């Protein structure tokens, strides 16, 4: 069943709250973060209002209830990504935290001097810097797979770079700059032939396409709640049980220990081993509501909507004279996220002028500075879509872009 963005918008209080100068909000910065539906907002409020207590500690009623909700959320996530075991789901602070966790535990234990980590050229800083830091700690080497001229991962180059030295392929599911979707199934298959592990940065992919960790057989999957209608400060790391059991803990503190003596400690079992300290309980519980909301819309319907928006946006934007879109120009294996520059207008000016028409787009380097150099630009504007965006909003964007030019031209005169 096709999504009805108009009806979906009604579930998000922000759209009623942010009408400016009679113009409805056209929110196109979903790649950075998404808006929240009422069910998610209510879930946090209700939890704090009537059910709040800590998890895994108290004997009393409230704590038992909070623990129940928190662990039920873990099951919701496990089910959403089709994990084999619920304990393979670790709650973190976000995708960035999840990736750092892997670098600090799996990386420190299994990736040493001379070993190689393979990345794409279009990783978010969050999936680069933790590996650059590991490189500094251990002397491991980062190897970058080339991109094809239409900004897809060059699979031939990947094949040639995989070797017995490869310990990890850390790759984005979908680029937050180019919109490119990588062939994760194939990447996992190729990497595993060389006994390398695969970490998927799912921050962009998971919210728009869902993910099946068992079908892809990836070893790690990182994603953030706030990019899929959930609260900030919550993320997920999926990791295979066998790896989770074999690596050292991440942060030390409460909950992650089994037993502490004055001269040592033993670690708790999965998933608690990686969840030191009191977690974002309310955030996790509300995140589960966001997932249920998405499941209610239907992942297949979300994918179909994404496809429709992508086709329409490519058609309408590419036909606009003076626009340069960075990323694949065809809708296959590509998300509804478009980085662009218009004429020679700086992306900041584009974003300010669009903001005046109540259109929110991102401008800047999108936490991908090396890629900006590759693209030969300092910054780009970026429009990224989600379930509540209508095709009409692409027309509004297109018309407002033309205004940008007229505005700056006019001002010269």
């Amino acid at each position: 069943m096709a999504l009805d963005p108009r009806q979906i918008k009604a579930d998000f209080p922000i759209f009623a709250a942010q009408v400016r100068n009679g113009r409805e909000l056209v929110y196109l910065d979903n790649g950075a973060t998404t808006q929240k539906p009422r069910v998610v907002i209510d879930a946090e409020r209700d939890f704090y209002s009537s059910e709040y207590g800590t998890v895994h500690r108290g004997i009393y009623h409230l704590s038992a209830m909070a623990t129940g909700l928190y662990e039920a959320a873990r099951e919701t996530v496990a089910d959403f990504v089709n994990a084999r075991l619920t304990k393979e789901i670790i709650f973190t602070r976000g995708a960035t935290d999840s990736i750092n966790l892997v670098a600090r535990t799996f990386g420190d234990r299994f990736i040493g001097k001379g070993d190689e980590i393979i990345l794409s050229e279009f990783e978010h800083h969050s999936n680069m810097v933790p590996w650059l830091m590991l490189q500094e700690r251990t002397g491991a080497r980062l190897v970058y797979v080339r991109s094809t001229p239409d900004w897809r991962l060059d699979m031939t180059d990947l094949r040639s770079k995989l070797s017995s030295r490869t310990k990890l392929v850390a790759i984005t599911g979908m680029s937050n700059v180019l919109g490119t979707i990588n062939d994760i199934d194939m990447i996992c298959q190729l990497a595993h032939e060389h006994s390398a592990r695969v970490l998927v940065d799912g921050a962009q992919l998971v919210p728009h396409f869902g993910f099946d960790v068992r079908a892809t057989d990836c070893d790690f999957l990182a994603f953030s709640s706030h990019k899929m209608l959930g609260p900030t400060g919550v993320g997920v790391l999926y990791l295979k049980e066998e790896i989770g059991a074999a690596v050292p803990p991440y942060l030390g503190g409460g909950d992650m220990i089994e037993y502490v003596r004055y001269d040592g400690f033993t670690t708790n079992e999965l998933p608690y081993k990686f969840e030191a300290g009191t977690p974002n309980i309310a955030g996790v519980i509300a995140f589960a509501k966001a997932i249920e909301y998405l499941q209610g819309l239907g992942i297949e319907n979300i994918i179909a909507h994404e496809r429709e928006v992508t086709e329409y946006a490519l058609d309408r934007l590419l036909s606009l004279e003076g626009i340069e879109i960075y990323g694949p120009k065809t809708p296959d294996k590509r998300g509804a996220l478009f980085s662009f520059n218009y004429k020679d207008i700086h992306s900041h000016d584009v974003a300010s002028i669009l903001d005046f028409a109540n259109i929110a787009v991102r401008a800047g380097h999108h936490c991908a500075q090396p890629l900006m150099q590759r693209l030969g630009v300092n910054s780009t504007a970026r429009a990224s879509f989600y379930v509540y965006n209508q095709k009409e909003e692409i027309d509004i964007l297109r018309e407002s872009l033309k205004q940008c030019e007229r505005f700056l031209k006019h001002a010269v005169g």
Partner: protein
Amino acid sequence: MQLDDLYREVIVDHYNRPRNFGRPEKWDIMVEGKNPVCGDEIVIYLTVKDDVVSECRFEGKGCTISIASASVMTESLIGKSLGEIRLVLSDFNRLLRGEVCQRCEQYSDAIAFQGVTKFPVRVKCALLAWKTLEGAIPDSGTHQA
């Protein structure tokens, strides 16, 4: 609030025809500045004779606001002593904080940037060149006129 407050005609003009743009053959002081948020970069070159700025040029990439502001800055610094530069820098900072600054009328088209205060996210753009220069001229930021 009007978009014209941001893109005043003089500002767009400074952007389209930046004054004192391009690297000079010689200089006494060179400073580079970057806005890590947007990737804008700027390099400023100062030539100083007998404690007075005889030439001030810049090059770089940036948005309308950051380039226009750099252009205005170069115009307002030429002919000033290093002591006076500190005053100009702190005056411009005050202007961008929304304070009244009568002297700013005298600094090229600096006063046109008053409207930028209505767009808080763009204040950084307007200050890029000035903050960059501040780094090369110690204690200018704390100078109180």
